[in-house]
């Protein structure tokens, strides 16, 4: 941009704008910072008044998150000296570890269901998006609108018959059921986003490939797929984040074996009232991957959240 532009904001305006935006960003980050900090606090520090900004970090919250503990008598404690650092932490509170908690399982459920449904919805979505982008389909606009409209329904409204369907087919509280459900919910996003990305690939590439003797399917996976790789990757991340964060279906349709982390984390309680360091530790571990993905995605963020309606 030339320095002689009437539309370029003045230096002073830039300074003021910068200060205000940074100020807002810092305020908006505070709850996140507080989650991360609380995860490293001892339980008494976490509920101190006034709230403690400076504190001695401890891994107690993380140990509590991953273990189940019992109060032990002094004799028992003396008979079982701690062998590892985490046993030491528990030991110091006069407790003993009686086993692993369910957090690890719930976290793995989130991983399995998240990746499974992401893979399926991106796979089906890519095929459908390619079909819509390149072929004459009867009632194309209506079908696309239908696909989009499936996202408008409140999840609780669809949950009633899905609950009945799952109960009848034995899919309640199974990984397969949740993967299927999340795939269906994510498909609308996958189709719309991917159609946008594929529309941007010039048709001439495929036509050249067809002339070279490729079949339609070869042209699809040897020419179009590599070209759409970035689009497919960012769509996948969006689907993953959605499945990762989903709560309404998870809380209604899973209770044990297939329960994901979002309904589980709020149920974490300690021996005396809510164990906020453990809750925060769980939340930190759960939110961290999404923060990393958001930073990776920043260029396509807008497109993803508006179903491809706004492209930069």
């Amino acid at each position, binding site marked *: 941009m030339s320095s002689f532009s009437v539309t370029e904001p003045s230096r002073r*305006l830039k300074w003021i704008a910068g200060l205000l935006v940074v100020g807002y960003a810092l305020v908006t980050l505070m709850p996140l910072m507080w989650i991360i900090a609380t995860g490293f606090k001892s339980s008494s520090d976490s509920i101190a008044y006034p709230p403690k900004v400076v504190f001695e970090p401890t891994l107690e919250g993380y140990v509590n998150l991953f273990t189940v503990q019992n109060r032990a008598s002094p004799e028992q404690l003396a008979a079982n000296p701690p062998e590892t650092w985490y046993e030491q932490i528990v030991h110091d509170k006069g407790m003993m570890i009686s086993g692993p908690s369910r957090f690890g399982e719930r976290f793995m459920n989130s991983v399995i269901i998240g990746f499974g449904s992401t893979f399926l919805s991106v796979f089906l979505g890519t095929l459908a998006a390619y079909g819509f982008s390149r072929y004459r389909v009867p009632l194309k606009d209506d079908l696309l609108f239908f696909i989009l409209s499936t996202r408008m329904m409140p999840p609780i409204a669809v949950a009633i018959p899905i609950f009945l369907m799952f109960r009848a087919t034995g899919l309640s509280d199974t990984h397969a059921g949740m993967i299927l459900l999340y795939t269906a919910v994510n498909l609308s996003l996958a189709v719309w986003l991917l159609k946008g990305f594929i529309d941007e690939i010039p048709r001439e590439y495929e036509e050249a490939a067809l002339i070279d003797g490729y079949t339609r399917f070869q042209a699809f996976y040897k020419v179009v797929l590599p070209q759409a790789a970035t689009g497919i990757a960012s769509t996948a991340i969006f689907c993953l984040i959605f499945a990762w964060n989903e709560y309404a279906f998870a809380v209604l349709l899973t209770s044990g074996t297939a329960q994901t982390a979002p309904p589980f984390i709020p149920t974490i309680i300690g021996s005396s009232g809510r164990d906020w360091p453990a809750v925060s530790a769980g939340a930190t571990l759960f939110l961290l991957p999404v923060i990393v993905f*958001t930073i990776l995605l920043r260029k396509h963020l*807008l497109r993803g959240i*508006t179903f491809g309606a706004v492209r930069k």
Partner: protein
Amino acid sequence: MSVTAIDRIAKATPPRVARKIHGLSDRTIAWIFIGPTIVLLLAVNIFPLLWTIYLSFTNFRANRPNADVEWVGLQNYQRILSNPEIWQTMQATAHFLFWTLFFQVLIGFALAWLINAKFRGSNFWTTVIVLPMMLSPAVVGNFWTFLYQPQIGVFNYVVGFFTGADPSGFSMIGDVRLAPWAIIIVDTWMWTPFVMLICLAGLRSIPDSIYEAAECDRASKWRQFWTLTVPMIMPFLMLAVLFRGIENFKMFDLVVQLTGGGPGSVTELTSINLKREAFEKWRTGFASAYAVILFVTVFGLASIYVKALNRVKQR
């Protein structure tokens, strides 16, 4: 679609021979690509929807699957529309919708306008601001109950610090008057970046040349803002409002974790109320009618709105 020589030959030959020459027809290939998606959506979305509509005319209860199901006609619908409790949840939802949209548009637009001044580091700070929007509403909402604690909560402490109020003297979640604002604050915190991103895209889509022309015509900055920036950004703002409106009409996870609908039922939004009818009171038929009314409302409002949006775009 380009018409190749092979296409033309294929059209001129009898179908059976044509298939041998050409392989699958374009239409068949198209259905191979699209079919699986449509089938899955029919099974997991349309079939349940039709089932809901059917159930809404019955007195079925999901916790008594073996009891006789009676056809009750429009009785469920009548009961819902004449139920004052449900009208109250509709009001709570409208209040929530109005104020979240108001604050998010106001703050989101202001932020976008400031970021558009392109100060150094604006891209980095944009990414930082966007973070809350991508996080799990249930997990974050649950944590906010901790921030809102009267004695130990940071929110109360900060408010007390700046206003001089006693931090343990008020409870955002426990107070009937404050609870609706507690959910509005968290939703605004989470979703303002969404409106901001869309506004930013709108602002960046306005070519500099328009402002240069206005500058030549000696239009004041104030005038430029109201006659150029605002009308050109309108379609973007309306799109943001559409997305947020639909999302917040469906709002469930964040508010369930924050207030659970309480105290009493002042923050009981329609989704939460519906969940209570369907999965706690197990009035499946009644809840199905409720669900039908909700999505008719969403679709109705959304399609009226999209028409208005298109009119603004055409101008």
